[in-house]
């Protein structure tokens, strides 16, 4: 039997190998994780062959003459005999390590911990220490200086062994190419950039090099690789919808560093500077440590009991006087599924209203709605790992290398290697440099541009007729609209030459497998939902659905925004996306919650603000969302919140919103509680408490439960496993989800009763049966129609790598030293027209208000278009953003703001948290 298969022998015992397998991998599978020592090998890097200590002897016949081969990069020859520990090999390894030790500082070697220092471990393994080095002292590199220029990254190259792992990690994992070797031979040394320090270089502080280094020569301020942690907890990152797994190291109950597990299916040993390094906010001195109630205009610390009593009394009285609809909640996409479920349950079952929403409203609500209309499910059709299988990536309205860095790095890796990429964006994002097709459209013209693409797919006869016929409906009406398009007009509207659009359309349609990714540049528009439907049209018309490497893949923003919506933190659908206005569903919820649940849809966030201004909404409870800083038209938000009878804000920090609250409740960070997050590829992953909540704070889920109990609802205390069990009974696609069975890498929903995971959905048929085509005409945003003449420039908002949303967490970490302020990106022509130079403060004025912001001249944006971020409360960019919303999902149009500009002296705002509520927005 053995003869017929791929057999090779390890120390004379036969084993089966896989085709193309390298000897080292073969040895590891059959002898355990460390069959031979290695120094230059790393789990997420290509075989490199520099250290040679993994060498083995290989003979083609039993007892035949052998050759010495490095096991890491030598493929197995059928029937060969591999000898791992002959005297010759033992001698070779020892002699190589001896050479390495001749240029390794002896004092460091003495103190190195063999558990974390791979050189020391390998040296001990081959039976060598410094005393065993026979060479007399010669040339060495012990004098090389350290680099501590950067808030995070460190290097101490005296102990570098030139294994190139850091250089390869920077190239093969992150794709940044900041590290290289300088010189050659024995004197070659690692340098950053053009011989700079970390801070001066283009390093993005992803830490891949630090995690890769075997000796700590390249490290970080936390000494993540070599510190002597006493425990490690695996959990999931809080910073974006990618959902990186993190190994969080603690010592004496304190978090000391974070690394990325290599076996993580989501991030394979990689993560970004937010996930790896931006954790020190968790015990920052500004964390809220006590509940507070506003007394005589000031927030004063009170006991939990007092805060709860105050809240409950107020809610009860408002409910009895104005009815349950005078109360609303905003749940947090940064909280766990279980917490989101509880919050919506509280609002629905305890208060008795559907006035529950979450930040998905201001980001991907059009995705959920649009994809539900087209496919039946408002979530990614495929998985991020499909980037490996695709032939064409369409990136529209997303800047993944900044906002979803680990996924962005994977896309960049694929694009660099030549996978076709189409980028549609008003800004020349990093990926656009590598993309074969870059369509730099005017903000607000997505619908026009995608219609052009669809037009060319039809006119070139590139439709997948069979797919259209068997799996879709509505094609005839749709194609009638497409064929009637006036391409001359579309070209003028979008500002993109038709030939470029045509080439991109052909590339997408002719790729064997094409997948799309979209972000808020699609959704945060007045036609956001329609654009999502067009992206679905593109996938359906080309048959790019239901197999690896295809599909429609929204890049979800906040870490658990997928989960918040899944759990029912939205006013029109309850837990599991069930329609709250459907009588049968209503009965289901009534039975399940054992409470009276209303059948009318609740208010979406913008409607809540309108209702507050109108005096109809009296109480809001907002968890983990700084609506003042991040929702559009700040002055209106402030007006709405000011008009409430009671604003409850549950937060980690005194954010702009918390500073306006009547009740402030100190919640817990992701590091301090357990539960599950669902990432952008529908993957439900376990979040595990690494440390206890800081004194005075509580897990957000427990706070909600406390209030439920005080309002006489029978809800057990917060625990992720029992909560998940409850959820699995009401959310159809969570049916088979069990806390204990989620394992390290979670499961992708739908998870049926048998507990299986779903990497790809809509394989045989769509959730809604047939996929549905929709055609929509492009329409100019009301913002431009109404204000375009007076405010001739368009500003569009985006994100920077270093900061997350309102920045409440990231600004309180070393990230704040790397990127210190919001910046206005402006084309040199526009700058010149307005007398603005690089670095000048610029006053940006819209119909809503004005902000002063520092200008940076760049070709990243075309003339007429500007871009900025809203990470910093000192700027409060949302003072100027518009009040226009997506016509369908009510997602605000952050991406199209009509403005005018002038040079200004510019003074920064005074922070609300420093000067109190009355100064906000002045």
């Amino acid at each position, binding site marked *: 039997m053995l003869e017929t298969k791929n057999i090779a022998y390890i120390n004379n015992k036969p084993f089966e190998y896989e085709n193309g397998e390298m000897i080292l991998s073969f040895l590891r599978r059959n002898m355990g994780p460390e069959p031979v020592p290695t120094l230059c090998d790393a789990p997420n890097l290509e075989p490199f062959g520099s250290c040679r200590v993994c060498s083995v002897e290989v003979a083609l016949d039993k007892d035949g003459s052998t050759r*010495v081969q490095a096991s890491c990069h030598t493929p197995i020859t059928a029937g060969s005999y591999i000898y791992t520990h002959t005297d010759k090999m033992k001698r070779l390894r020892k002699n190589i390590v001896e*050479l390495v030790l001749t240029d390794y500082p002896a004092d460091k070697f003495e103190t190195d911990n063999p558990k974390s220092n791979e050189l020391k471990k390998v040296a001990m393994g081959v039976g060598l220490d410094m005393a065993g080095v026979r060479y007399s002292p010669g040339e060495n590199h012990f004098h090389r200086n350290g680099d501590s220029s950067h808030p995070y990254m460190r290097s101490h190259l005296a102990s570098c062994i030139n294994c190139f792992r850091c250089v390869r990690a920077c*190239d093969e994992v992150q*794709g940044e190419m900041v590290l290289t*070797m300088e010189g050659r031979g*024995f004197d070659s040394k690692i340098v950053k950039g053009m011989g700079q320090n970390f801070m001066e*270089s283009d390093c993005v502080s992803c830490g891949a090099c630090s995690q890769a280094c075997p000796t700590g020569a390249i490290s970080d301020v936390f000494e993540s690789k070599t510190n002597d942690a006493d425990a490690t907890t695996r959990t999931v990152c809080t910073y974006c919808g990618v959902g990186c797994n993190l190994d969080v190291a603690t010592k004496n109950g304190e978090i000391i560093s974070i690394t990325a597990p290599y076996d993580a299916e989501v991030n394979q040993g990689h993560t970004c500077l937010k996930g790896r390094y931006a954790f020190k906010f968790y015990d920052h001195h500004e964390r809220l440590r006590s509940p507070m109630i506003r007394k005589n205009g000031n927030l004063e610390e009170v006991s939990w009991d007092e805060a709860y009593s105050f809240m409950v009394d107020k809610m009860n009285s408002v409910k009895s006087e104005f009815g349950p609809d005078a109360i609303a909640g905003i749940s947090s996409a940064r909280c766990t599924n279980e917490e989101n479920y509880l919050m919506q349950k509280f609002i629905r079952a305890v208060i008795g209203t559907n006035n529950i929403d979450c930040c998905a409203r201001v980001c991907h609500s059009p995705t959920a709605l649009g994809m539900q209309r087209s496919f039946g499910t408002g979530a990614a059709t495929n998985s991020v790992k499909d980037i490996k299988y695709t032939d064409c990536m369409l990136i529209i309205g997303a800047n993944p290398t900044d906002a979803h860095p680990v996924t962005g790095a994977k896309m960049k890796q694929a694009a660099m290697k030549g996978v076709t990429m189409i980028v549609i964006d008003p800004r020349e994002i990093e990926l656009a440099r590598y993309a074969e097709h870059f369509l730099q459209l005017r903000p607000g013209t997505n619908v026009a541009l995608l219609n052009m693409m669809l037009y060319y797919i039809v006119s070139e006869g590139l439709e997948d007729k069979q797919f259209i016929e068997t799996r879709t409906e509505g094609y005839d009406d749709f194609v009638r609209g497409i064929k009637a398009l006036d391409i001359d007009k579309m070209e003028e509207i979008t500002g993109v030459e038709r030939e470029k659009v045509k080439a991109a359309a052909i590339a997408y349609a002719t790729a064997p497998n094409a997948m799309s990714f979209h972000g808020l540049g699609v959704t945060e528009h007045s036609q956001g939902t329609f654009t999502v439907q067009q992206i679905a049209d593109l996938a359906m018309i080309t048959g790019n659905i239901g197999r690896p490497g295809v599909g429609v893949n929204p890049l979800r923003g906040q870490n658990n925004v997928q989960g918040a919506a899944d759990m029912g933190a939205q006013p029109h659908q309850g837990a599991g996306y069930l329609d709250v206005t459907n009588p049968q569903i209503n009965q289901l919820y009534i039975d399940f919650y054992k409470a009276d649940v209303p059948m009318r849809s609740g208010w979406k966030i913008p409607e809540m603000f309108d209702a507050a201004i109108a005096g109809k909404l009296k109480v809001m409870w907002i968890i983990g969302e700084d609506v003042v800083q991040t929702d559009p038209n700040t002055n209106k938000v402030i007006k709405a919140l000011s008009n409430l009878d009671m604003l409850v804000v549950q937060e980690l920090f005194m954010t702009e919103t918390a500073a306006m609250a009547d009740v402030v409740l100190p919640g817990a960070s992701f590091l301090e509680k357990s539960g599950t997050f669902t990432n952008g590829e529908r993957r439900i992953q376990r979040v595990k408490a690494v440390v206890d909540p800081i004194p005075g704070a509580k897990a957000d889920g427990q706070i909600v439960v406390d209030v439920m109990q005080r309002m006489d609802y029978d809800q057990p205390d917060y625990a992720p496993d029992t909560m998940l069990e409850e959820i699995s009974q009401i959310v159809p696609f969570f049916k088979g989800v069990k806390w204990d069975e989620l394992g390290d890498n979670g499961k992708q929903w739908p998870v049926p009763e048998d507990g299986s995971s779903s990497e790809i959905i809509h394989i045989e048929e769509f959730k809604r049966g047939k996929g549905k085509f929709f055609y929509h005409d492009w329409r100019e945003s009301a913002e431009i129609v109404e204000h375009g003449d007076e405010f001739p420039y368009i500003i569009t908002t985006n994100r920077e790598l270093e900061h997350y949303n309102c920045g409440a967490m990231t600004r309180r970490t070393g990230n704040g030293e790397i990127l210190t302020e919001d910046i206005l990106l402006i084309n040199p022509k526009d700058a010149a027209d307005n007398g603005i130079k690089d670095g000048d403060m610029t006053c940006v004025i819209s119909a809503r208000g004005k902000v002063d912001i520092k200008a940076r001249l760049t070709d990243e944006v075309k003339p007429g278009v500007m871009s900025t971020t809203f990470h910093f409360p000192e700027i409060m960019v949302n003072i100027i953003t518009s009040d226009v919303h997506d016509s369908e999902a009510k997602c605000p149009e952050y991406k199209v703001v009509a403005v005018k500009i002038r040079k200004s002296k510019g003074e920064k705002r005074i922070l609300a948290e420093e000067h109190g509520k009355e100064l906000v927005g002045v």
Partner: protein
Amino acid sequence: MSENLSALSGRKGLENNLFERMVENAKLTGTPENPKLKALAEEYLMGDAVTYGTASFYDFMKKEHEGVKAHVCNGSACLVAGTQAKVKEKLSNFLKPEEIGYMCCLGRCHENSAFNYSETNYSGDAINHLDEILSNSNPALADNYTVDSNCERVLTDLPMTAEEYKKLFAKVLEKGRDWALEQIKDSKIRGRGGAGFPMHFKLNACRNESSSQKFIVCNADEGDPGAYSDRYLLEMQPMLVLFGIMTAGYIVGANYGAVYIRGEYPESVQVMSEAVAALDSVGMHGENINGTDFSFKFKIIEGAGAYICGEETALLSSLEGQRPEVRVRPPFPAQKGLFDKPTIVNNVETLAAVPWIVKNGGETYSKLGTEKSSGTKLVCLDSYFNKPGMYEVEMGSSFKNLVYELGGGFKEPVKAVHVGGPLGGIVPTHKIDELNVDFESFANAGFLLGHAGIVSVPEKFPMIKYLEHLFEFTADESCGKCFPCSIGSTRGKEMMEKSQNGGPKMDRELLNDLLETLEIGSLCALGGGLPLGIKNALEYFDDELKQYFK
């Protein structure tokens, strides 16, 4: 080796070659300026560390090369000839110390005193005409060396003209790809670069790869001190080389042929470029060669001072603008080579034999030489011979005859000949009689034919110094990737040096361990090949060397 960098560099390919542009930049001041490197990195979508790191690798691009105007050859032949101290001294009369650098080697082993000034090489008596050279009066100072043969002249016949090229290639086009490959196969020709790999294997493997793009790369980075046969072919027989490249391209379906010529041979670069222009003028270059649907373009690329670029994978990385660190294999170049596309890398001498093979038939060629080593071989003799020069001999012919008849014997007592470059074997004079000029004869006797450059070690030259030189050469030229070579060559050099200069004498066991580590542990032939000559010397010159051991 980075797949990303290969692909990114490949986007602009050979036409707009990153490495070539770096070298061009370096020529202005001796090193490319950082802003230039940064701009190039940006243009090629790479991090600035990439171009910076690449430039720092090369002798003629690194920062220390700024302002260097003259280079003194420090190759083995000039070393044993003892001419270079005087060359440097004379140059110092005109140039500041920081304006004088080194090159290894200029291929002037037949007359020594070699140096390079302002992109021109000089040797022999030229050093005595420095004022003319420096005043730019273009003295006629080209070197002269004997070119002779005692057999069928495959490589040393009268130079081929462009018209003859055209006529012969028309025959290839007419007979077709299969026929051409068949001739190569029948000829049994093996690569002349040192490894002796049958040429048709690679051609066949590359031909079977399905790829819209393939490349032929001519390895003209002849770096072995003592060898100047490639220089001869590049400068005196350029059409033979180009013909071989184009034929290989025709066989495998490649449309580009890159000739990577070491920067130490400026004249070769010039002659080859002129030859390409001559082909262009007769319709034998570019689109539709000779009116057929076969298109082929040559690209002459000049190196920048790095011996390791003679290693084929390092050469490919160099051509891509990456640091020329040796790659792991697989993948082999025939599958994934230049810009990750199927690529044939062949040595100059191998390719130059192709015209004779297609003209006379592969089978005819196979009858030259021995059963296993067919054809002829170029052998270079250094200045210790009475008739220094370049000889074409039949494979399998008597080594003794070559040394004592063709070469006329030695001018003064010689104790050993170092054959096949720094990684070749050191043949004690008494062993010369036992050898034939072919791969097997040398290998069986514990030596290496290699590229067949011969450097004589005179009686008066201490063997320990020669061994130190070999370690030093390897330490200087090691790419720095694999631990055995990058650290081991330096430690070996130190051991040799200290043992002569009052430091500790050598521990024989430690040296043996080091040699074994280099030999079986190194990634490529640089570290792996160094021990051969050292071991030969230890075996045959123990009387002289034992005083340096404990």
